[in-house]
């Protein structure tokens, strides 16, 4: 009996001693004091306690860099340009950075630690990113696998974003999923409506986040979101815009179209929406109604594989093919694309063939 107590006691004491050594060592080695982070050449300066990652240090100062993996170096979204104070490139960052990015000082902010004063450059828009608490007001089934989520913002109660930008929403652990995940979704509502935003989420088989929002989340739930993010937003210096969307890629495009109409901008809009068959088409009546009311807006839905029972008289074929049939000359026109990488790549090629300039093509791949 004494033997057992003796054993347990000695192991505990040794462990406790080692734990104490580690704690002291951490206090000593990991104490980098107050470090100053200079953002965008002095446009903002923050002072943080050194020792944690740049991503979390910035978050503690309410500057949110986009990050979908939460600091595990698996998403590669949290890129910032570090002018000095970051140390050498880490093996964990390398896979996410191109040669040009490495040369211009791009780093993953979740991997580098704040150890000294730093100078960094981040896109100006990131300053306006905030964390929001929101409530799911309404869930509408749009197609068999796409739902629209209407969220009302609770705190802060208003968001200011450009049409086309996205927010990141998180899930709570459910079923066998023990972690909370964060995913990005474009806002489909108009920017002028600042206290309510709408998201369009397509159920991806096996997707952690989409399954959560389709099957677990219900009206009245409170969720956390952050935003607005992204450089896919409307530039209003065009006279002629071609919009091409596929599947749930309609979300940012809808926001842009509504924004243009609401502001009364004198822009000719041509909107191609690609779906597989009639059951994948949504907001059809909505856009047809806009088309009737606004002569500067043309809506062209196209089905790539209409079923016989669809009795489809509209455009058939891939959205790229339909686009090529309708647009003959792209000189001076702008194009906004949102959809799967396959669709975007195909569209980019035919846009260039039609004479669209590269700097006038904007797209969001997902």
């Amino acid at each position, binding site marked *: 009996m004494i033997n057992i107590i003796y*054993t347990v006691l*000695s*192991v505990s004491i*040794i*462990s406790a001693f*080692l*734990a104490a*050594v*580690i704690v002291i*060592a*951490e206090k000593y*080695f*990991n104490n980098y004091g107050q470090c100053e982070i200079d953002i965008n050449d002095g446009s903002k300066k923050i002072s943080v306690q050194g020792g944690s990652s740049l991503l979390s240090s910035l978050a503690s100062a309410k500057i949110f860099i986009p990050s979908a993996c939460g600091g595990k170096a698996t998403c590669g979204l949290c890129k910032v340009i570090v002018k000095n104070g970051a*140390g*050498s*490139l*880490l*093996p*964990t960052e390398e896979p996410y950075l191109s040669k040009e990015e490495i040369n211009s000082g791009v780093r993953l902010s979740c991997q580098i*630690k704040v*150890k000294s004063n730093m100078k960094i450059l981040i896109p100006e828009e990131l300053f306006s990113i905030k964390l929001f608490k929101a409530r799911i007001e309404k869930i509408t089934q749009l197609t068999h696998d796409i739902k629209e989520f209407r969220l009302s913002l609770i705190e802060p109660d208003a968001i200011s974003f450009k049409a086309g930008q996205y927010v990141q929403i998180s899930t709570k652990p459910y079923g066998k999923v023990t972690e909370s995940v964060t995913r990005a979704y474009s806002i489909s509502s108009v920017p002028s409506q600042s206290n309510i935003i709408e998201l369009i989420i397509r159920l991806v088989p096996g997707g952690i986040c989409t399954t959560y929002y389709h099957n677990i989340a219900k009206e009245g739930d409170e969720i956390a979101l952050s935003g607005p993010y992204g450089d896919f937003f409307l530039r209003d210096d065009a006279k002629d815009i071609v919009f091409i969307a596929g599947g749930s890629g309609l979300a940012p495009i809808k926001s842009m179209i509504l924004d243009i109409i609401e502001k009364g901008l004198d822009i000719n809009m041509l909107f191609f929406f690609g779906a597989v068959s009639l059951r994948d088409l949504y907001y059809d009546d909505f856009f047809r109604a806009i088309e009737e009311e606004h002569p500067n807006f043309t809506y062209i839905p196209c089905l790539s594989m209409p079923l016989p029972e669809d009795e489809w008289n509209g455009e058939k074929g891939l959205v790229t093919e339909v686009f090529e049939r309708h647009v003959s000359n792209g000189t001076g026109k702008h194009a906004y694309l949102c959809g799967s990488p396959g669709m975007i790549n195909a569209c980019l090629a035919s846009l260039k063939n039609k004479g669209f300039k590269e700097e006038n093509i904007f797209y969001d791949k997902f």
Partner: protein
Amino acid sequence: MNQSPAISPLIIFFASILTSNMILSNFLGMCSYISVSSEYKTSSGLGKAVALVMLVTTAVNYFVYHYIIIPLGLDYLRFIIFIIVIAATVQIIEMFMDRYLEDLHSKLGIFLPLITVNCAILGINLFMVIRQYDFIQSIFFAAGSGLGWWLAINVLAAIREKISKNKLPQGLDGPAITFIITGIMALAFIGFSGIFTVQ
């Protein structure tokens, strides 16, 4: 088992690189050896980190064993105590490197947490006790074993990089061919056995 005071530290050093190589004759530390050996650059980093941790933890555990475990009569607990000492030491080495040896940390840092559970490290510490090495012998033993581990994983990685460009029978690709290569390497290392033995 040898009563060791007679063995010169230098012999121990070279023997643990060549004739009683941790991987090729004791088959210790296989998990990271197999899984992190597909690229020469990374395996070299891992090898160096293992060598460093072996050396430091052996030195620390030598004192822990002789000045804490033996006086307290806790010999039967040496497994557990060695493991927690290794874990704590690795943690402290990482913090130290992160602060003062930034370049080294950026190269070896990601491997350190992996090594905490590497059985070669624990193996060295236990052999040190079983073979009754004194402090100098233990240090040479650890340094040699570390070097041997680094050598073995580098050779394997070099071979695997060469092989990766060739076609393999489907079932052999990956760990299977790696084990076969390791076996042949072990056979080759037997060639050194005439030089000296320590076990």
